[in-house]
């Protein structure tokens, strides 16, 4: 366990993290077009060593932000998907039961040999205690994502995806990990991270998170982008796209968001749609193509039915 203190600040000293201004182009370099507010939150998270809680509707780039940060800083990404019923043994660690079982069997075989010359029961017990208990020890520990993240010597990016899907009990369990970057294992003791990971939690607002968890995190709400930002995002994600088509499709999507839909298209849908249009060799937005590919943008039958009669009008507006 030799650790030089400067290892701990490796990530924080990356030139990209010198200021918010350098973070925006840095992220753009790995394909993530960040608004200033996003960059500020990320900057603060690294400087204050606090987790970021990222909220926003599905597909605005919450998970992508964590992936891009890992790529930018050259850190490994450890991802943990939350779901109902997720518990410590899947998130933190598990004992290697099979090996433990073998160990006890070996122990049993050797036991008679080791204890054969003990004169009485007390002496045998003394000797048994003297042998050291390996049964619950680190070699038998199978690390799961959270523990792996804490064990990374040079730091990492830990993405805890869709925390709102997990149970309340698990959320409470996370508090220790997130505030002190350590975990308590009842059989062994406390394991502390040498280099705190950069933690992202994402939430779709399925349920309200507890105040205790929110308090420990910086909060970042990613809204749907305005037209200019969205065009830049599309251009960065779909390199081959023409500026005119980009402009048209983004303004079409923007006007869709103004309608009363069950699920408004978000950035990932826009990007998918742009890719689809490129594949179909569409040079400009036309009613026919839009009608055929509308299912890329809208995920509910009634949304599609509501939009279809207006397509011609919307396309005209987008083109104009």
């Amino acid at each position, binding site marked *: 366990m030799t650790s030089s203190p400067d290892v701990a600040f490796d990530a924080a000293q990356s030139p990209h993290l010198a200021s918010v201004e350098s973070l925006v182009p840095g992220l753009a370099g790995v394909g993530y077009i960040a608004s200033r507010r996003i960059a500020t939150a990320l900057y*603060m998270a690294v400087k204050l060593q606090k987790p970021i809680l990222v909220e926003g509707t599905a597909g605005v780039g919450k998970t992508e932000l964590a992936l891009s940060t890992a790529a930018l800083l050259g850190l490994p990404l450890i991802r943990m998907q939350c779901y109902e019923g997720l518990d410590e043994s899947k998130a933190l660690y598990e004992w290697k039961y099979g090996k433990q079982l073998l160990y006890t069997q070996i122990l049993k075989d050797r036991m008679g040999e080791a204890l054969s010359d003990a004169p009485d029961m007390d002496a045998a017990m003394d000797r048994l205690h003297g042998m050291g208990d390996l049964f619950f020890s680190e070699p038998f520990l199978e690390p799961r994502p959270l523990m792996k993240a804490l064990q990374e010597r040079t730091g990492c990016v830990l993405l805890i995806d869709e925390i709102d899907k997990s149970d309340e009990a698990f959320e409470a369990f996370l508090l220790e990990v997130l505030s002190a970057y350590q975990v308590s294992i009842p059989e062994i003791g406390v394991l502390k991270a040498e280099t705190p990971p950069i933690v992202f939690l994402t939430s779709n607002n399925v349920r309200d998170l507890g105040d205790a968890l929110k308090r420990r995190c910086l*909060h970042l709400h990613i809204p749907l982008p305005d037209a200019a930002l969205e065009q830049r995002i599309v251009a960065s994600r779909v390199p081959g796209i023409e500026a005119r088509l980009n402009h048209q499709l983004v303004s079409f999507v923007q006007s869709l968001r103004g309608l009363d839909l069950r699920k408004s298209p978000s950035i990932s849908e826009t990007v998918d749609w742009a890719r689809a249009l490129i594949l179909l060799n569409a040079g400009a937005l036309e009613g026919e193509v839009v009608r055929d590919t509308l299912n890329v943008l809208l995920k509910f039958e009634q949304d599609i039915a509501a939009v279809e009669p207006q397509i011609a009008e919307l396309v005209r507006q987008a083109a104009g």
Partner: protein
Amino acid sequence: MQSALEDFFRALRAADVRVSPAEAIDAHRTVEVVGFADRELFRDALCATLAKSGDEVTRFESVFDTFFDRRSDAVAPSPPPAGAGSDLLEGLPPEAQDSDLARMLLDGDGAALAQAMEAAAERAEVSKIRLSTQRARLTRRLLEEMGLSEIERILAAARRLGGPGEAAADRLEAARKALAAQAAAYVERQHELYAAGSGKMLREEMLARKALNAEGGIDPVDLAMMQALVKRMAKRLADRYSRRRNVAWTGHLDVRRTLRKSMGYGGMPFDIVFKTKKVDKPSIVAICDVSKSVAAAAQFLLTFLYSLNEVVDRLDAFAFSGRLISVNRVLDDHPVETAIFEVLKQIGFQQTDYGRALEDFAEKHLDRIDRHTTVIILGDARTNYANPRLDILATIQQRSRAVIWLNPEPDSYWSQGDSVMNRYERFCHVAKTCNTLEQLERIIEDVLRTYIPR
């Protein structure tokens, strides 16, 4: 700047953005990292630390703008007229020489005036403003702390002397008026920062206790606020009770699953599996009297129940005055706020008849009630001396999990006049007075709680 930040936290709290001491410390650390130089960076960084939801972000931004803007535009008096002599106080009575305020006013020194106003505001404790009625008094105190009485003495003296001092006195007078207006604006902003939010909170607290069957009905302004309040209450309850779907250990070993899991370990039962109990979601039948005296309460009860759809498995609503009808359809088609009028239109104004309503229910909808169902009846139990049909209520009680009767009238009225509440009461598991939103919230919470196994 330390105290400015503390004031800012106070303003945030007034706007219902929670800032705990730990968050305040975080905010100070944030400021250490980012500094004040870049306003946008400063705002975004603080926002990330302090605002914890999309809603709070909006409130944070509006408080930030109001709070940190006031210094720049608060005091901007007119500059001294060109060609004014080196001594602006020329011609004024000698007291003017000693008055800092007079000098500042005539100099048009905005920064100094702003500073003086901040200092005076601190002495006058303007930021402790709570109510809009305090504004006039605090403005007056603020001006006095700045030394306005001095100026008034100088003006009076200058007018008495007349002559060359008149022109300077005119300018001083104008500057004084401008200052008074600025002081009023300053206090107004303070009110907006510190009191507007808490005033709203006070009002909501009051509305939660407002009697729903008040004479003359409920003010439309209040009604909108109460609707929002009910929805918030319901959301709070839904949040609390939706999390307890699976109640973990009940202590019984699940032999089958334990054996299955032990296969991997050569039959050694390493993983012990316990039986878990599923929590069933409440199923609710609401029967509401919608005659005039109870209609408002019925509206809120229905709003409340409908907002609980996350935690309620099934909700059937019935309304009656003379006859009973199912109002599920109406509630599905109309927003809850207006649905009650639609219901009233369909039922019409008949004389309330509890016996008939119960008969209607027993005839058509009795099979809706099983042992998982909680029946909530809302009504004043004033039968107009008709047969109350206690036998039907007894049947309902036997079939259901619980019968809860909510009566807008206090229990001292329950046996008076044509009220048969004391007779119905025997067939209810719970009979309570429910005439405010607060009582309503408490009762619904009790219902939800009974569905959680211990």
